[in-house]
């Protein structure tokens, strides 16, 4: 019986094959739909003070703390596909609801080459810069409900700008890649400039495996921009200082960073248990002419600042679906203020209001527990204690859900 089966099976299978090809050869308008994925993010936060102040740091971009009570986070809609055989395109928008208003933010919109070969890829459009480790990873894929402080303080959340990126992967056994970006340089920590092409970034990454159970990646990055005007003021505290104007004129900024990630899973099988360690360190140098105006009063000074920050975190999946994590954030600022002149504002007031005055080093401890019943859903509980350097301790607890609908997102390392 089985011998006969064998004799007919082969030609039959070939037939099936042909029949299958025919059945998928239909013409329909939605065959070429791009991959669509939607991230739903919501949270409940219990926080004393959701205004983020970090003495010594002028905040910008999306730097901030979560609102007290219920809030929706970044609900992200992402659409991507190969455009043709040469290009890939991707668009990510965040739909944010805040202060009774719905805002659609363009997070990323870029195209990328597929066929340059020899390890080269060029990306153009608006994108999360390749610097650092977490910078290019969207918030929903982070391991904590909020970003590391150093990202908020240095980049206003993420360094995201419009321009062009070149990447190259070396033809070596050990992974080694280099990248560079030319961007407008007008996004925080850069600022408005006439050329609209003043941002320059470089990054290098290397990494590999240690045996079958561990792998690592080490990166170094550099960013610089110079600008005519940079408005300070983050997401978190725009409203109440509307009468105040906090600008840095004729400024230069550069940031240098190193990042390291180590991952372990028994036999490289991360499904049941795994461990991840990650740390990043950034140093920012910036200078410019600071101008602070509040109502009729003005103050100005020359500013030359050096700021550093790092975070370290460890995440352990102790059983399928359950993970715990701890994180420590630390910042320090060393700012030089010279040639102060004030009209109705004294120097101390200026230092505090402009964000340039340094006090103690801000730091934060966080712990989190999350549960992912499937690949596509995650519930997270996080506790953080932020000491902002003013001798104010801010405790907060967050309960968050992050759900992923639609196409299966890929996992970056």
């Amino acid at each position, binding site marked *: 019986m*089985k*011998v006969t089966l*064998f004799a007919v*099976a*082969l030609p039959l*299978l070939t037939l*099936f*094959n042909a029949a*299958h090809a025919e059945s998928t050869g239909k013409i329909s308008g939605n065959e070429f739909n791009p991959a669509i994925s939607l991230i739903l993010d919501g949270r409940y936060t219990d926080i004393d003070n959701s205004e983020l102040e970090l003495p010594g740091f002028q905040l910008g971009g999306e730097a901030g703390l979560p609102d007290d009570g219920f809030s929706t986070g970044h609900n992200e809609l992402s659409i991507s596909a*190969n455009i043709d*055989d040469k290009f*890939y395109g991707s668009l990510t928008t965040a739909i944010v609801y805040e202060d009774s208003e719905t805002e659609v933010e363009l997070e990323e919109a870029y195209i990328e080459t*597929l*066929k*340059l*070969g*020899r*390890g*080269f*890829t060029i990306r153009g459009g608006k994108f999360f810069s390749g610097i650092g480790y977490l910078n290019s990873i969207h918030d929903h894929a982070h391991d904590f409900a909020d970003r590391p402080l150093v990202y908020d303080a240095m980049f206003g959340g993420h360094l995201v700008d419009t321009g062009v990126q*070149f*990447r*190259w*992967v*070396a*033809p070596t*056994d*050990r*992974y080694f*890649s*280099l990248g*560079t970006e*030319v961007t407008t340089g007008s996004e925080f920590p850069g600022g408005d400039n006439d050329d609209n*092409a003043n941002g*320059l970034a470089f990054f290098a*990454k290397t*990494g*590999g*495996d240690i045996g*079958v159970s561990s*792998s*690592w*990646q080490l990166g170094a990055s550099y960013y610089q921009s110079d600008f005519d005007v940079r408005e300070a003021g983050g997401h978190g505290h725009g409203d109440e200082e509307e009468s105040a104007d906090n600008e840095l004129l004729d400024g230069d900024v550069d940031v240098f960073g190193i990042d390291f990630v180590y*991952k372990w899973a028994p*036999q*490289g*099988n*991360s*499904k*049941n248990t795994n461990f991840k360690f990650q740390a990043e360190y950034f140093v920012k140098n910036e200078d410019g002419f600071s101008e602070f105006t509040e109502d009729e009063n003005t103050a100005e000074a020359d500013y030359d600042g050096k700021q550093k920050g790092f975070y370290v975190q460890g995440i352990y999946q102790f059983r*399928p679906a359950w993970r715990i994590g701890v994180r420590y954030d630390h910042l320090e600022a060393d700012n030089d203020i010279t040639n102060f002149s004030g009209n109705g504002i004294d120097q101390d007031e200026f230092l505090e209001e402009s964000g340039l005055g340094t006090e103690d080093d801000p730091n934060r401890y966080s712990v989190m527990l999350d549960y992912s019943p*499937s*690949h*596509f859903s995650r519930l997270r509980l996080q506790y953080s204690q932020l000491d902002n350097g003013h001798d104010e301790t801010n405790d907060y607890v967050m309960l968050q859900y992050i759900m992923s*609908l639609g196409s*299966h997102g*890929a*996992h*970056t*390392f």
Partner: protein
Amino acid sequence: MRLLAIFCFSLLLFTPDAIAKINVFACEPEWKALVDDLGGEYVKTYSATTAYQDPHHIEARPSLIAKTRRADLLVCTGAELEVGWLPLLLRQSGNAVIQEDQPGYFLAASQVERIEIPVEVDRSQGDVHASGNPHVHWDPYRMLVIAEALSQRLQAIDPEHVLEYKQQLSQFTSDWKNAIRQWEEQTKGLQGKKAIVYHKNWSYLLNWLGVETVGDIEPKPGVPPTAGHLSKLLEAVRAQPPDFILIANYQDDKGAQWLHQKTGIPIIHLPYTVGGSEQADGLVSLYNEVLTLITSTTQ
């Protein structure tokens, strides 16, 4: 000035690649083994995963990007098995010859008809594959079809050695056909038996052997077993006792052990793919070992 810097930077990086053997990046060890059988000394193969890893849960880690960068041919399962990491590897590799429309991109599951294609695709069904069950290397007849298509691909990529590839294909095919005859002789007694599986990665094997699958330890594909599901399964098992429980040796066997303790039904731990046990160092030895493990338990 800035653009000039970029230009110099690009020049610096422009180094020619040395080409000797055909570099093959296989996503899973079964395809590495098949390429080794069909390519012999003309190929240099690498497998992205081991037999102890779940190919659903891999990340596009640095070492894999370095390997895809240098690959001339990519051999993967497809049918969405590697959807969580392969597209990212392709985009990060900067390698033009293994992109989707190129001869250097080969998906084994696309060469054959798949079973268990869901009528309805909804995530409430678990981590389902819209293109059907991807674990095709467990059907020896489908393997013959895949081997032929893969050999043609090698011939297209490396035309210098067409004759050698053809020779190796006919050697593989005749060895494999002989092996099938022996396996079918050996497993005659399994027809009509009933099995519980941990995950649907044995469907092709059990279909071929004529073994009926009466339950899954996973409540839904990719979802770890829950107490509620296991107790329901226990009732079903008591009503209609299966002959054995099959589980790959990389899968968590707590649920299977619990069922075994309650009912005494034997658990068979199987190497899922090449390298999954000491003996299973090639495709034929993998089949030999798995079939021997199953038949010796049921006798």
